[in-house]
């Protein structure tokens, strides 16, 4: 599908995402202006502050966005029952964007005022102007060109960085970009990137115009600008308050997921099941980047999300990889309950681990079944591995040692390219993910891990114990999916979405129907504390 066709086909969604994006940029830049300009002025008044403040703003610019989110999500700051800091959603995205936008505004305000000719400042003082008269009638108007240039830079930066908001369920054009990266779909990436770039150019152009107009005098216009910024911020504040307001949340279960297809499918399966079987309404908060789903679960922003035992063990609990699936599951179950108040429910039934793949015809021709079987061919073979596999503790180094392999060549390449390279005969063996939809479609064969080298990554629902106490029915409902999804089935589901480009909701609904899980069974809906027996 060409980019243009895509735009036409999804113009409603495009418009919505663009508006969300614009809102994020406008609100965050507005707040950054209201904070940054006074801060910049303050720095000109007490230069001793300039080092720490500018240092802080500089450091904020260098903090990677996911790390910043990881820091912001666990915070808990309420103003009048509305969470203003912490959690996932637009308000946290705005906080991060404000922190990124502050530097250019503070710096330009400071530089602009400092660059006012001292003779002019002295003339003002000698004329009997008070400090604030000098500031508002002389220094600020003369620095306005600088200040507006700073606002312009901040806005353009914000348009770019606001794409990361999609990582914490705050919407915006980043949705397309993340989805496109996940599905290796250039059209989708462009569908997010092109409107964002146009928006940046547009903002730059308009603010450039304003800058030229304001380069002319005078104080009155400055006041109007400040008012406009204030109104913008007030409107943004109301919007954020509405977004963040708990509302009917007492009745709602928030289901989350990480930001790749399999996770979203699992999230959708759980969400549909909760809706039909527990009769609770569900808020879907999918697509959370990095380990933000974990942070969000601990912060109570989501109640449920799918996780892998191996990830829980090595990434969250920071333990050494273990090879026995049962031991891993029991370890994470116990540790999560103790440390986080989170329960691991019954695993879905598939293990999404590294899959050592060869071409199907090679497997048939050479009678390959297990990884050990390839040891004799390896010296003549070329291997292609993703960056992740090459660098992980449970990746390449341990792998060749465990099986005593020696490849003619081992090339490091992008994971998505390894499949193509294998199919085209450029490499002979690759390490994919066992649930990848492409495995079946491209006639690849997964060799058995006969020495149990790869740690298990069994997928299972994670639920907050607090949520389970309020809605005990959830345990039974989600356990309906326990053991219900085989590796082959997960591959097929992934392929339906990634390969065929089908809608996740439909794919999930079909699967539930095929499994006979679309009809509510006899679970009683339990809301809040149980009433005493009559």
């Amino acid at each position, binding site marked *: 599908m060409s980019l243009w066709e895509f735009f036409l086909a999804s113009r409603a969604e495009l418009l919505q995402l663009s508006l969300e994006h614009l809102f994020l940029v406008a609100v965050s830049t507005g707040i950054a202006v209201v904070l940054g300009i006074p801060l910049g002025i303050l720095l000109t008044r007490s230069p001793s502050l300039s080092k720490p403040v500018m240092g802080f703003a500089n450091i904020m610019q260098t903090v990677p966005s996911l790390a910043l989110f990881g820091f912001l999500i666990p915070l808990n700051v309420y103003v009048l029952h509305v969470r203003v800091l912490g959690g996932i959603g637009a308000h946290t995205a705005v906080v991060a964007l404000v922190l990124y936008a502050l530097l250019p505004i503070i710096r330009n305000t400071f530089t602009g005022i400092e660059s006012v000719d001292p003779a002019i400042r002295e*003339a003002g003082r000698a*004329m*009997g102007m008070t400090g604030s008269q000098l500031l508002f009638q002389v220094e600020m108007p003369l620095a306005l060109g600088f200040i507006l240039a700073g606002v312009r830079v901040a806005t353009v930066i914000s348009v770019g960085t606001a794409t990361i908001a999609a990582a914490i369920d705050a919407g915006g054009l980043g949705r397309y970009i993340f989805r496109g990266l996940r599905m290796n779909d250039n059209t989708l990436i462009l569908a997010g990137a092109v409107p964002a770039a146009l928006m940046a150019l547009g903002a730059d152009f308009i603010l450039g115009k304003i800058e030229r107009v304001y380069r002319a005098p*005078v104080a009155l216009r400055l006041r109007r600008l400040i008012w406009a910024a204030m109104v913008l911020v007030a409107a943004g504040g109301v919007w954020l308050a509405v977004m963040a307001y708990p509302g009917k949340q007492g009745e709602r279960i928030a289901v989350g997921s990480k930001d790749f297809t399999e996770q979203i499918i699992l999230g959708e399966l759980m969400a549909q099941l909760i809706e039909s079987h527990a009769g609770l309404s569900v808020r879907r908060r999918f697509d959370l980047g990095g380990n933000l789903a974990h942070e969000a679960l601990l912060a109570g922003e989501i109640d449920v999300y799918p996780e892998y035992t191996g990830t829980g063990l090595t990434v969250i609990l920071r333990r050494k990889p273990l090879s026995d699936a049962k031991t891993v599951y029991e370890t994470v179950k116990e540790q999560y309950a103790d440390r986080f108040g989170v329960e691991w429910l019954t695993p879905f039934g598939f293990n999404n681990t590294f899959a050592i793949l060869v071409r199907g015809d090679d497997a048939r021709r050479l009678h390959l079944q297990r990884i050990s079987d390839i040891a004799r061919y390896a010296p003549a073979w070329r291997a292609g591995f993703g960056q992740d596999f090459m660098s992980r503790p449970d990746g390449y180094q341990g792998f060749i040692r465990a099986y005593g392999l020696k490849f003619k060549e081992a090339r490091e390449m992008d994971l998505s390219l390894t499949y193509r390279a294998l199919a085209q005969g450029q490499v002979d063996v690759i390490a994919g993910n066992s649930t990848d939809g492409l495995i079946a479609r491209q006639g690849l064969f997964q060799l058995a891990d006969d020495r149990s080298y790869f740690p298990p990554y069994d997928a299972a629902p994670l639920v907050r114990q607090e949520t389970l106490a309020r809605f005990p029915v959830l345990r039974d409902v989600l356990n309906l999916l326990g053991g219900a999804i085989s590796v082959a089935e997960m591959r097929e589901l992934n392929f339906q979405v990634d390969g065929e480009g089908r809608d996740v909701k439909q794919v999930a609904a079909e699967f539930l129907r095929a499994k006979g899980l679309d009809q509510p069974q006899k679970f009683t809906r339990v809301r809040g504390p149980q009433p005493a027996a009559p």
Partner: protein
Amino acid sequence: MSSAKSRETRDVIMVNSEETQGAIQFEGVSFTLPSGKALLEDLSLAVHEGETLILLGRSGSGKTTTMKLINRLLDPTRGRVLVEGRATTDWDPIRLRRRIGYVIQEIGLFPHFTVAQNIGLVPRLERWDDDRIRERVDTLLELVGLDPRIFPHRYPQELSGGQRQRVGVARALAADPPIVLLDEPFGALDPITRREIQREFLALQRRLRKTVVFVTHDVREAFFLATRIGLLKDGKILLLGTPTDLLRSQEPEAHSFTACLRDPEPVPGAP
């Protein structure tokens, strides 16, 4: 308010003045930088009401420092400066400065203000109503020889150097201050315009009779405008008297300056 204040002022003067009464008095004033460098040492002088006192000296002799002590852009580190009989440190600096007109080289005009806004600045700060400000601006423009039909809406960068300087003088006179300070106001002008504007200034001063303190290093300008001249060197006053006193002085520094008078008038454009 004015009568009460002037009575009070006079009382203070009676107490503080020794022989000469003045609109401005320096009593043993020193000004030392935090680094310990003395810019002004033990200066005592009085500026009489309605006279033009020229502070003459080389660069770095303390002229501008003396000036800034009057409108309290600086506070003395020793001694005190009295304006209308009251120590500057007892004045509210904002009130004090609005009673003192101030002209510096052309650069002091606000580039983002029109001529009218520049001239009307102090009246506006003093909350005059708009009509009165407009009237005042027109009067002052005429006073300094600029056409009030043309100039009010121009910006400083649209004016010639001489016009800017006239606007600077008009701005200093806007709220009719009893005292006017001028810090090398005509220094950046070409010699012909400078002479022209000096003539106008002299005529203006004969009419208005302000108490004027005028800083310059140009001895011709000093002789042309002065009622009295104060000769400064290295932060000390060497001589305070009429131009004639200066001519007769045996002081070597006075000689250096008066020698310049005997040089031929510099020709514009000549090396």
